[in-house]
């Protein structure tokens, strides 16, 4: 009976009418602005970027002469070399972090803060209704449990997207203010099919943001699941943040020894490894990772849905 839009409106009201939410928003803005100020204050200008690029290229050539290096690494270095040559030939300066675009790319590191905040919101979404006792008021309305849960999940994702948009905007604004916008027309050098092409820098920034979102979505979904299954916000925050910070390390150590590490969630959340890095385990590809992520995503949601639908609401 009640429509999804109204339910989402309700969920948003419950998020943004709370003081804690605004503290998180404030911290995010602060992180983005401070990041720009710190870079402005500490960055050292390179005197001659051409000499540096040339030195880097020579270094790469030396390594490439060694035939024992694995093919993956070889491809990666080859790509680097080609781009370096293109830079020297067409006079395209490497992007530095004290430029408008450079800072935007760097700001993608702050996404882990967005992930943390989204985990907190996701963890509270269902669990708080139980701890406040309001779940008893919420579930006796003409709205199915599935619809209520969906509205909560959508609201969590909306929160994440809003935070990302805010981060991007604040970073762009502070970048423009502190570093200027003279370099805004510079292209991004992408390596496609053995050749270097100049592409839109904005598209590249959005791509970096998007690739960084895999663990954001996965961990928010994970926290949402724990929150629903155990009805305990602290547990959900704890488990999800522990996974956020420790998961990748553990996965890395496991991947050194075991091949099956590639099926672990955190081996696949860093999608940027396929764009300008090296896969964690040999043989991993972007479609493989996307498939693994999809399986985890469906599993988390299935558990959440099933528990919320079936379980009795007792004191």
């Amino acid at each position, binding site marked *: 009976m009640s429509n999804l839009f*109204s339910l989402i409106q309700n969920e948003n009201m419950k998020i943004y009418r*709370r003081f804690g939410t605004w503290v998180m928003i404030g911290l995010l803005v602060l992180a983005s602005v401070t990041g720009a100020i710190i870079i402005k204050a500490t960055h050292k200008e390179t005197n001659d970027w051409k000499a540096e690029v040339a030195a880097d290229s020579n270094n790469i050539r030396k390594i490439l002469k060694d035939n024992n290096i694995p093919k993956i690494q070889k491809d990666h270095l080859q790509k680097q070399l080609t781009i370096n040559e293109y830079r020297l030939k067409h006079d395209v300066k490497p992007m530095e972090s004290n430029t408008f675009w450079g800072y935007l790319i760097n700001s993608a590191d702050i996404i882990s803060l967005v992930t943390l905040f989204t985990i907190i919101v996701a963890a509270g979404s269902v669990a708080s209704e139980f701890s*406040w*006792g309001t779940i*008893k008021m919420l*579930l006796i*309305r003409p709205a199915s449990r599935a619809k209520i849960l969906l509205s909560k999940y959508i609201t969590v994702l909306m929160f994440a997207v809003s935070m990302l948009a805010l981060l991007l905007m604040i970073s762009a604004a502070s970048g423009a203010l502190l570093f200027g916008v003279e370099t805004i027309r510079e292209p991004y050098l992408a390596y496609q099919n053995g050749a270097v092409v100049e592409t839109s820098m904005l598209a590249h920034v959005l791509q970096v943001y998007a690739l960084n979102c895999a663990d954001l979505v996965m961990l928010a979904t994970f926290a949402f699941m724990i929150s629903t299954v155990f009805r305990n916000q602290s547990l959900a925050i704890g488990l999800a943040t522990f996974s956020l910070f420790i998961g990748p390390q553990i996965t890395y150590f496991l991947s050194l020894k075991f091949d099956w590490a590639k099926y672990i969630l955190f081996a696949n959340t860093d999608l940027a490894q396929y764009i300008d890095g090296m896969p964690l385990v040999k043989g991993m590809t972007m479609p493989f990772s996307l498939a693994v992520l999809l399986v985890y995503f469906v599993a988390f949601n299935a558990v959440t849905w099933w528990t919320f639908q079936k379980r009795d609401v007792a004191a």
Partner: protein
Amino acid sequence: MKPILQLKHVRKDIGKKTIIHDLSLDVFAGEVFGLLGPNGAGKTTTIRMIVGLMGITSGEVLVNGVSVTRDFEKAIQHVGAIVENPEMYKFLTGYQNLVHYARMTKGVTKERIEEVVRLVGLEHRIHDKVKTYSLGMRQRLGLAQALLHRPSVLILDEPTNGLDPAGIREIRDYLRKLAREERLAVVVSSHLLAEMEMMCDRFAIIQHGKLVTIESVQELSQQTEKVLFIVEPKEKAAQMVKAHDPHLDIRLVDQGLEVTIDYKDIPRLNAMLVAEGINVYGIHVLAKSLEERFLEMTEGNEIV
């Protein structure tokens, strides 16, 4: 008359334990119906099943003929409820809480919200945060959210819990008014018999998850009752009563005479006493007999 709320052979198992056994009852429009039983008898479980918070192991609950399990959204739109305490979002104002619940049902206008706020007498504090409310005000706000969508069944779990005597009286009068004037079927639960008597038209006694009996308050009080006549002089009055009807069971107590008599015979006995020049200061139907029956029915166990 068609019942608005029907429970048909409702049973609830949790694990291997049966919490509710074969519970059947009908509640009609315009009456206040009570669920009476000691703590842990299964009142709250029953209410949770009616409003769909708990699954029903077997049997069914019908609201206006619609099954709560099969067509939840359609059945529940006619139900307003407070399950246990009226928990609200404390960081929102009372008004925002009501807007929240109004959005979840079709057709609740801004005017309706304001109407309900006036109805429960919260108009001066409705824009304050709920965390500043007293328990009584939270009860009122709880009542407001339950009435928002003009339900035909109102279910309140221990509605007088934590209220002061004035508050209890107010809610009692209010529930009766809703039943009489708005033709609502009101279901209340309590572990206090006296409260049930004052509030309800009928009540079910539940113990150990089983329906012991359904009593009508009026019927009960119209049966043979122990009546206290506060009279002066007592001895003379006792003689008079004995002469009037030797079969009556009379007992002299401090305040006067305790007579076990049919409800309908009370005025006649009183007229006789007055005619004989006895000063009658008061006549009290002693609820005690009801209490005794309740104790009897629940085997005197753990009433409170």
